């Protein structure tokens, strides 16, 4: 099969499964068959993706574009749908398919106790998500990307609200939905502006130059897109939905809210990089927002007591890294961090899920000493934790190092990048501390009463942990290969290397881990919390949420009230006037409607007669 066919298999197999399950209600409600089908779709997609990646690695093929016209426009078509296969999409395809497959396998064990119909529903949404994400990854233009973007948003909504019977889950789903929708408005407006300015939804050089020629359009489009990225990738201050999204099942958090969907924002930047890179304002915004999010989320993570929330804020923080790195112009650093992060964060979430499954609680205080009872889970969590902390030789180290290095370079040219440099370096230490804390509290020390009877999860949950642990450890060593694949030429890579900033960050990370061990080995949540107490209070008070509530909801309410008035008295008034007018006119005209067929026939004949007379008259006149 050629590359395009493989890509089509990867994207269409899940949608076939999803559509079948959506339509064939009996199969869906039967539960297990739905899971088997969905899994088969995911595995098929994974095989096609790996094959495709292999082709792209060994065969130095150019980017392949295959599209069909859509949305007809005079003479041509305004938009196309299709697949764009190159190194970037191929590798992301594998990341998505691999994580999705692992998560689905994991879910078979994790969700086993759900009612059958919920089980089927769960896997249906999973298949739909996989399709949407693969479609997003392969999108050859921004319009298709936008469509898939909304589809993954929909899947996110559906999966967060999976336990809709629980009020909080429903609320979290709605919150996620409308926070991201607010952000997506940016993407939509950006698309409109871009299309108005260039007549294209592409991100190619000619589009960018046309945009550039259009003056203010370029930064405007870039910032509008960035607004969408902030929503999807949970950048401050639009991150508020992500912690709440933890209401969904843990595998969902692993797949959507850690590894793939939230990375879609970053992926958008990667894909449409020419548009962003052409505007300095946008790049600076990346650096500032990303840098602030990195440190802010890391600090908030410290004071979390819920293991999933810790990981959620950690995800925010790491996404901040990626955005900041992309702001420096280092495509490689940002995208590499996206890739490695996908693996180890999915691993962390799944390990956390395994632990939660064992103790039936999200709270760190209900865990403890799990490593002895659940060795595989414990090992997986520790590996993920170390990788995230940036311990040398593990994947996170390489990508984080590259991020910091790129920030250092940028800072030397633009002073404003000192801010993300400092925040990211500091948060490397904080990250190590809170992750160490979480690992120590959950897997070492004294077992709580909940954790005493915990035992290792079944093979369907253990296996994905092992599979994901491999890239979490080793993905970093493939940096050179990936650089080739992505067409970033001047990356010098060595498995063991030390740069000044790397040494600082590593030292901070190891220090953070050490502090975590010392402070928490004996259990207890205290530790450095005092230092972060104000922040903790801040986080607990939900001030950001409150601010949003005020600014966004109240604002919307007031505006809505105004619009409602306008609608009721002006729009409706016009409508009513028209309606009443027609009604009155109707009563007059109604008299013409005698209801006798011959009268109507007469009117028709009269019409024909008039036409005949008209044509005659015209012939004589003209």
């Amino acid at each position, binding site marked *: 099969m050629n590359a395009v066919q493989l890509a089509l298999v990867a994207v269409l197999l899940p949608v076939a499964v999803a559509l079948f399950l959506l339509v064939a209600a009996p199969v869906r409600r039967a539960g297990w068959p739905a899971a088997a089908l969905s899994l088969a779709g995911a595995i098929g997609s994974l095989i096609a993706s790996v094959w495709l990646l292999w082709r792209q690695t060994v065969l130095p093929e150019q980017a392949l574009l295959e599209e069909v016209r859509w949305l007809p426009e005079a003479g041509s078509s305004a938009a196309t749908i299709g697949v764009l296969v190159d190194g970037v999409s191929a590798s992301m395809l594998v990341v998505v398919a691999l994580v999705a497959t692992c998560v689905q396998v994991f879910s078979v064990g994790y969700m086993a106790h759900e009612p059958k119909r919920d089980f089927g529903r769960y896997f249906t949404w999973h298949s739909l998500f996989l399709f949407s994400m693969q479609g997003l990854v392969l999108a050859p233009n921004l319009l298709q990307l936008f469509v898939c973007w909304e589809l993954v948003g929909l899947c996110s909504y559906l999966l967060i609200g999976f336990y809709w019977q629980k009020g909080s889950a429903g609320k979290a789903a709605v919150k996620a939905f409308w926070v991201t929708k607010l952000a997506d408005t940016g993407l939509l407006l950006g698309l409109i502006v871009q299309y108005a300015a260039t007549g294209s939804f592409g991100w190619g050089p000619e589009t960018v130059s046309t945009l550039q020629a259009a003056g203010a359009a370029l930064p405007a489009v870039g910032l509008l897109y960035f607004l969408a990225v902030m929503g999807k990738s949970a950048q401050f201050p639009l991150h508020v939905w992500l912690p709440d999204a933890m209401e969904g099942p843990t595998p969902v958090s692993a797949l959507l809210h850690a590894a793939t969907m939230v990375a879609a924002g970053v992926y958008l930047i990667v894909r449409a990089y020419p548009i962003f890179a052409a505007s300095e304002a946008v790049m600076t915004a990346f650096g500032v927002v990303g840098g602030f999010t990195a440190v802010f989320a890391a600090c908030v993570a410290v004071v979390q007591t819920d293991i999933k929330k810790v990981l959620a804020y950690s995800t925010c923080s790491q996404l901040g890294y990626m955005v900041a790195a992309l702001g420096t112009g280092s495509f490689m650093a940002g995208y590499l961090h996206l890739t490695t992060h996908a693996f180890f964060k999915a691993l962390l979430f799944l390990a956390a899920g395994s632990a939660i499954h064992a103790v039936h609680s999200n709270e760190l205080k209900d865990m403890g000493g799990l490593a002895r009872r659940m060795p595989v889970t414990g090992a997986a969590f520790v590996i993920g934790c170390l990788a995230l902390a940036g311990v040398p030789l593990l994947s996170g180290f390489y990508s984080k190092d590259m991020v910091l290095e790129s920030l250092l370079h940028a800072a030397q040219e633009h002073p404003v990048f000192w801010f993300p440099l400092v925040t990211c370096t500091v948060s490397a230490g904080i990250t190590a501390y809170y992750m160490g804390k979480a690992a120590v509290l959950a897997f070492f020390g004294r077992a709580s009463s909940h954790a005493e009877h915990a035992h290792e999860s079944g093979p369907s949950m253990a296996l994905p942990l092992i599979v994901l642990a491999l890239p979490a450890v080793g993905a970093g060593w493939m940096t050179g290969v990936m650089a080739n694949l992505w067409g970033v030429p001047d990356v010098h890579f060595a498995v063991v290397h030390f740069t000044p900033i790397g040494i600082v960050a590593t030292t901070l990370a190891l220090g953070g881990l050490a502090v975590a061990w010392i402070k928490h080995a004996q259990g207890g949540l205290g530790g450095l919390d005092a230092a972060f107490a104000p922040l903790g209070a801040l986080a607990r008070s939900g001030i950001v949420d409150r601010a949003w509530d005020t600014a966004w909801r109240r604002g919307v309410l007031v505006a809505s009230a105004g619009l409602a008035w306008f609608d009721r008295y002006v729009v409706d008034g016009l409508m009513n006037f028209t309606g009443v007018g027609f009604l009155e006119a109707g009563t007059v005209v109604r008299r013409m*409607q005698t*209801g*006798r*067929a*011959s009268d109507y*026939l*007469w009117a028709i004949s009269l019409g024909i007669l008039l036409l005949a007379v008209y044509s005659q008259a015209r012939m004589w006149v003209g």
Partner: protein
Amino acid sequence: MTLPLTLSVAAILFALGVFGALTRRNAIGVLMSIELMANAVNINLVAFAHYTNGVAGQTFALFAMALTVVEVAVALAIVVLLYRTRRDIQIDLASEMQR
């Protein structure tokens, strides 16, 4: 000479059809008047076909005939239905649409 003559016959038949459709109160009577008109149209088609060497004219007349048969079949089904529901087929009596 023959063409306008034929067309005149068709025109008069058409007008007769109109007159019948307007004055007939019986649904089948109206239908027959409509047949007159349709037939007039067919005559025109064939006449023009004759004078333009057009196969198309005859083909169209053929189509028109088939359509007329369809129309009559359905219309008569309606008439029978009308009769069954109200025991009468005076079309002026079927005026529910007025209100």
